[in-house]
């Protein structure tokens, strides 16, 4: 730490506790602990999928035992279940509705059909098939494997493009994709035989094949959802911006869920082909799409259990409507006379579910979750400490675990003690360059950042730096460009000009997730939590990124939970928490990233004075424990003066002043900017500027 004057010394005192050795030890202990936790979670999830499988198997085998058409219904149930579970893997976790997965089933069905149909049949149906396929005749199981692999590869290529899209755009592309696949299957006559049925496919699918596929699908889907990758995909579903700012590579995680789900849907497709023995393009079109969507939506697309329950219930409904419609008993091949009836019911079910239970009957609940939560609750209440998720406990937890807490009372000591010797000089231009001499200490530097929106300069040549162990304030009137600067630093905006570095590494041109992985964490002005995920999962998203990319700084989610006093709300969904607690969880999530620099966007917004002062000590606690530099935005001068050692004042996109709080407070430019003398109104005699004594 040599050569770091003034501001660095404060850091030396605080950061010493976290030497490199301690960090490494912590990292390995943390990693081992996490591996244990993760293994247990996956085990529980696996147990859950086995449990589900047993139930499904009992239903299917029981029904199949009735023989005849009942057996076929059981097989259809299982095949549809595989398809719906496959769709759940992508749409449920990523929140992007895909209409194309039915087509992947179709592609796989056709590949397997073409490869396995007897050459004798193909000689008459598709004699001119390309690649000499008319002369190929693979055994059914081999054809099925090849079909699944090839379909997955095709899906992967398409996924490279689709994973970049989100929301409605993505859905529309999948719709287009479905129509394209249908057009190809119908019109590539030399390969598929066109719109008419492709027949002669060896019929091999029976209940056991169906059960095997369901087992694979269940385990894959459930383990994926419980896995770290699955969790990341879910975080992108909840909030893409927050996910990428927590280090999640949105496109990549979405891509893998797309590939996995396509593979499972392909599996369903080959089963269908080898069950029916004859397939046509229309079998993998709107009718099947609507059916699978109704199934997924009814049970709840966020969960694997929901997919299973929805499939079973919709199958019962379909059977009932078919009975009512008095159609022939051939499932799924041709539209029976009153097929309109079953679609009528499907449409009605989708509407009713959307209106009354948008997350389906089960939401994201899983069988294993229901069981294990009951077990865990018993275990936890034994040793659980009472925590009433409030700012109070967060602060208490913070100081409790902090090693030496140098300045606990937030009151009078605040500015006096925390501010190291203010740099010499009159508080403006000359102040900061002192730190330039020691670039290693300036963790984050921003040089000349400008940001123009369609000609409007939101930021104009703004420079600042934040040192490790320092709490820096960024204040300014509304619209001064504070949040824009934060967005530029965290990579959400690409600045028009300027240069940013973290510990000497350039941040320019990096994506938000890359910047987060380098150790810059942030919160948002309006909280952006992963609302449908639990508090623990919210933290785990960031903690898992830290483990992968900054192991020396990583800590387990459990550790953060107890540090913030969140034990009691660990398994509560973040979206249902009261406002103040949500803000804390967001801070905790940022801390879980093990940041070198923490950016807080108006952490005190909406808090009363007492809460603000508690926040002061909470933020200090974080700084002391993490040794990170903190840059916080607020326009509550009181709060900022009490907390920050160094302050930058931003006005109309320019840094108009910087220095220690008392210097900034005296600066006429700041007074003018804050009280609006430029606007012409007479400034009241600065009553809103807090006197140091009371801060």
């Amino acid at each position, binding site marked *: 730490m040599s050569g770091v004057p003034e501001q660095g010394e404060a850091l030396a005192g605080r950061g010493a506790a976290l030497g490199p050795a301690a960090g490494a030890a912590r990292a390995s202990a943390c990693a081992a602990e996490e591996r244990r936790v993760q293994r247990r979670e996956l085990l529980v999830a696996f147990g859950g999928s086995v449990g589900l499988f047993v139930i499904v198997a009992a239903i299917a085998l029981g029904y199949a035992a009735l023989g005849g058409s009942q057996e076929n219904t059981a097989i259809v149930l299982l095949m549809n279940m595989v398809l719906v579970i496959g769709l759940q893997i992508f749409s449920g976790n990523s929140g992007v509705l895909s209409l194309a997965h039915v087509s992947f089933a179709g592609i796989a069905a056709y590949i397997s059909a073409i490869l396995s149909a007897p050459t004798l049949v193909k000689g008459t149906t598709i004699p001119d098939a390309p690649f000499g396929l008319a002369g190929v005749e693979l055994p059914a199981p081999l054809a099925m494997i090849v079909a699944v692999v090839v379909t997955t590869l095709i899906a992967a290529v398409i996924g490279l493009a689709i994973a970049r899209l989100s929301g409605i755009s993505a859905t529309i592309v999948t719709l287009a994709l479905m129509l*394209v696949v249908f057009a190809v299957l119908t019109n590539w006559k030399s390969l598929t035989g066109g719109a008419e049925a492709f027949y002669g496919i060896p019929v091999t699918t029976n209940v056991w094949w169906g059960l095997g596929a369901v087992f694979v699908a269940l385990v894959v889907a459930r383990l994926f959802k419980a896995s770290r990758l699955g969790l990341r995909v879910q975080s992108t579903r909840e909030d893409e911006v927050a996910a990428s700012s927590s280090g999640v590579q949105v496109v990549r995680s979405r891509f893998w869920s797309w590939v996995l789900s396509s593979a499972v849907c392909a599996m369903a497709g080959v089963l269908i082909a080898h069950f029916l023995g004859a397939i046509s393009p229309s079998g993998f079109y709107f009718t099947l799409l609507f059916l699978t969507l109704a199934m997924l939506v009814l049970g709840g697309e966020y969960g694997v259990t929901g997919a299973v329950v929805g499939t079973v219930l919709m199958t019962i409904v379909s059977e009932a409507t078919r009975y009512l419609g008095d159609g022939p008993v051939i499932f799924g091949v041709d539209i029976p006379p009153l097929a309109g009836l079953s679609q009528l019911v499907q449409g009605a079910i989708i509407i009713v579910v959307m209106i009354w239970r948008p997350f389906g009957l089960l939401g994201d609940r899983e069988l294993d979750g229901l069981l294990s939560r009951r077990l865990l609750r018993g275990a936890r209440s034994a040793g659980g400490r009472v925590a009433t998720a409030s700012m109070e406990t967060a602060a208490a937890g913070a100081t409790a675990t902090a090693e030496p807490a140098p300045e606990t009372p937030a009151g009078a000591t605040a500015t006096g003690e925390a501010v190291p010797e203010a740099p010499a000089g009159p508080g403006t231009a000359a102040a900061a360059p002192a730190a330039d001499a020691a670039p290693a200490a300036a963790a984050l530097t921003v040089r000349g950042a400008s940001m123009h929106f369609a000609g409007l300069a939101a930021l104009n040549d703004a420079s600042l730096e934040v040192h490790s162990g320092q709490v820096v304030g960024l204040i300014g009137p509304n619209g001064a460009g504070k949040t824009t600067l934060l967005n530029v630093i965290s990579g959400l905006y690409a600045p028009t000009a300027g240069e940013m570095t973290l510990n000497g590494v350039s941040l320019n041109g990096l994506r938000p997730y890359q910047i987060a992985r380098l150790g810059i964490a942030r919160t948002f002005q309006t909280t952006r939590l992963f609302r449908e995920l639990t508090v623990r999962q919210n933290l785990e998203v960031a903690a898992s990124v830290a483990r992968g990319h900054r192991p020396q700084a990583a800590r387990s989610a459990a550790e953060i939970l107890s540090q913030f006093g969140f034990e009691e709300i660990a398994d509560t969904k973040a979206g249902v928490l009261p406002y103040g607690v949500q803000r804390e969880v967001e801070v905790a999530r940022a801390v879980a990233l093990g940041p070198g620099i923490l950016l807080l966007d108006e952490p005190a917004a909406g808090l009363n004075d007492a809460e603000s002062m508690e926040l002061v000590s909470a933020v200090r606690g974080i700084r002391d424990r993490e040794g990170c530099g903190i840059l916080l935005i607020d326009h509550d001068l009181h709060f900022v003066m009490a907390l920050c050692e160094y302050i930058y004042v931003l006005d109309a996109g320019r840094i108009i002043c910087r220095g220690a709080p008392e210097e900034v407070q005296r600066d006429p430019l700041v007074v003018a900017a804050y009280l609006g003398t430029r606007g012409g109104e007479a400034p009241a005699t600065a009553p809103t500027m807090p006197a140091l004594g009371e801060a």
Partner: protein
Amino acid sequence: MTDFLQQVLNGISLGSTYALLALGLAIVFSIIGLVNFAHGELITACGYVMFAGYSVGLPWFVYAGIGIVGTVITALLMERLAFRPVRDASPLTMMLTSLGVSIMIAAAFETFVSPRVKAVPAPDWISSAVHIGGLRIQAEHILTIGVTAVAVLLLLLLLKKTTIGVAMRAAAEDFNAVRLMGIKANAVIVTAFAISGFLAGLAAVLILARRSAVNPHMGIFLGINAFVANVIGGLGNLWGALAGGFVLGFVEVALRAWLPVNLSGFTTGFVFLFVAIALVIRPGGLFSPKVAERV
């Protein structure tokens, strides 16, 4: 050259109907963020109302008018029964709801009327044509283009000159602000659906004048085309939707006219491939600037 001009005329004509559909979809989307999958079913509904009018022996002008009124009522019913309850839900929930509505309407006609095609004949003068040079101009072309032009003009007047129109434009920017200004949210949304129903009704009459028949599933592809037009123009962008409708009309006519015969089956495939690629490259639509999400 004449062939080219002929195709341009066909493109404008086809594009006009797509533009009418796309506009209706865009108005609703711009205000409540609903991607209405059931928009195409409005055409189906119009077709069946017209079929009913024809069955009882009414003249074309009358049943066309009743058809348009029926379409507006259908749109209002959709809003009241299905979309109002999910108005504040996520876009995904709204989209799935509309998918349910779409499935239900098509299935209802299939179940309660007939899965088969029903005749909705157009008067003879519609297919009459004049020849100028080598160019064949049908009454249907003139009618389509004229009706579209008048409808767009009326819409423009409504949006610029009436209170409700101004409120709708404002709602497209910031709905909450409009509510705070004392304008009833329901009034704005109901008007939007009424307009989208009216435009769809006009389009349906024009489409049925060409096809002379209705079936339960005719709406879905037209609805998808309206979608595609919106996507091309940028979702929720009214003039983008209008332009997107024409682009789609031209592309379709061009592919149909100049694609080699052995590939003609792939026309829709190519259109949607084009759409998919366009969207991947410009997720916000071809005509809208890239907008960064506010955080």
